[in-house]
């Protein structure tokens, strides 16, 4: 059965929806790769909640600056026009609705857009809420970028989240390796489905009821 997009292709797909001039916060992990795939003719400005607006590419080896890490701990650079501020101002920016998008990873997303991404209830590990809860209550639009299924093959898109919620009814769009899904008042809509996968294949790998969009298209990405 189709595995759909690679992880890099997933990040590429999410990046294509970022219009020129938008301000975006990327969650730790897979979403951080989104910044590497923005079309060259667009200016998209990435915020990192540790106090950077205008995060640039990873620092080259030997060129790292101790003062320049992003929220994921990567050694980064600044782009021309970047601004630096403290955490209080950074979260004021996020919570105050000044960023257009946040793209986050998730453990689970429900059919109505509930998000669970801070506590996987692991036996030996502690949770991380980080800035996720602030972001989802603050950014103008919340998008999720995640694998469609867990390593064990269980669906991450579910009728009701089993893990503690980050927020209820906040996710508007989900990018997975298999599909692009929108959460709408009419339910969860399949906008794009990976090549080689039928709608019923997709439904079978999904824990919530999907609706096929009238204009559903193939989910495609270049080789990366």
């Amino acid at each position, binding site marked *: 059965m189709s595995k759909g997009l690679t992880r890099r292709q997933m990040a590429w797909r999410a990046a294509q929806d970022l219009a020129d001039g938008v301000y975006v916060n990327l969650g730790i992990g897979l979403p951080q790769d989104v910044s590497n795939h923005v079309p060259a003719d667009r200016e998209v400005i990435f915020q990192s909640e540790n106090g950077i607006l205008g995060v640039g590419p990873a620092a080259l080896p030997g060129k790292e600056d101790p003062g320049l890490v*992003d929220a994921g701990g990567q050694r980064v650079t600044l782009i021309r026009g970047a601004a630096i501020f403290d955490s*209080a101002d950074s*979260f004021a920016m996020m919570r105050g609705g000044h960023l257009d998008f946040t793209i986050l990873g998730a453990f689970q997303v429900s059919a109505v857009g509930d998000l669970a991404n801070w506590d996987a209830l692991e036996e030996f590990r502690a949770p*991380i809420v*980080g800035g996720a809860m602030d972001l989802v209550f603050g950014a103008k639009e919340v998008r999720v970028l995640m694998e469609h299924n867990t390593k064990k093959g269980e669906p991450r898109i579910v009728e009701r989240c089993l893990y503690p*919620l980050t927020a209820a009814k906040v996710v508007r769009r989900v990018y997975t390796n298999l599909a692009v899904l929108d959460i709408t008042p009419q339910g969860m809509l399949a906008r794009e489905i990976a090549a080689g996968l039928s709608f019923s294949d997709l439904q079978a790998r999904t824990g919530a009821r999907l609706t096929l969009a009238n204009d559903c298209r193939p989910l495609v990405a270049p080789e990366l």
Partner: protein
Amino acid sequence: MIDKRVQTLADALDGVADGCRIMVHGFGVAGVPEALLNALLERGTTGLTIIANGAGRADSAMQKLFAAGRIAKLIASSGRGRSVEPSPFEAGWKAGRVEFEIVPQGIFVERMRCAGAGLGGFYSPVGVGTKLAAGKEVRAIAGRDYVLEMPLTADVALLHAERGDRWGNLSYRYAERNFGPAMATAAALVVAEVDKIVELGDIAPMDAHTPGVFVDRLVEVT
């Protein structure tokens, strides 16, 4: 003459007692007062409450404090790093030896700013309807639900800055700033380690991200 410089890390921590609530600056590795934390370990102080963004990276001084059983409680937005193995903090927490209060990061810093700014509390939209807002007062304002968040204070704040002067002015390097300015306002005793102590006037007025009034002691570390 105002002179907040001290000569040794031990002097910088003078009076820090068992059971203190200590704010610790830093995000990941940026801005962590690692030398002060190592000195705190050496000092033997125990029963601490640590207020920091996270529990610290593997091999960090903070994790050594957890491993040595010195920390009774952690207030943080993150309980784990990127290590594959559970950390000393995680082991302590799971075994019931360490208490863990998890706070969304923006609320964490805003509660410190609230304390430092002399406010009594604030209404926040963050976490409404989630486990992290359980037990908090909820109030509808202009059609949206908010929870009441209270000031977060400490006995001590431990900071790291790139430069400092004898008045206690601190200048942070890029994103090492993070929680430093808020913590400096919210603790009774504010102690900074700096890469370099400079002459008064060498920090331009616009670069004194934490004005000296907030700082009690600073020590140069190498």
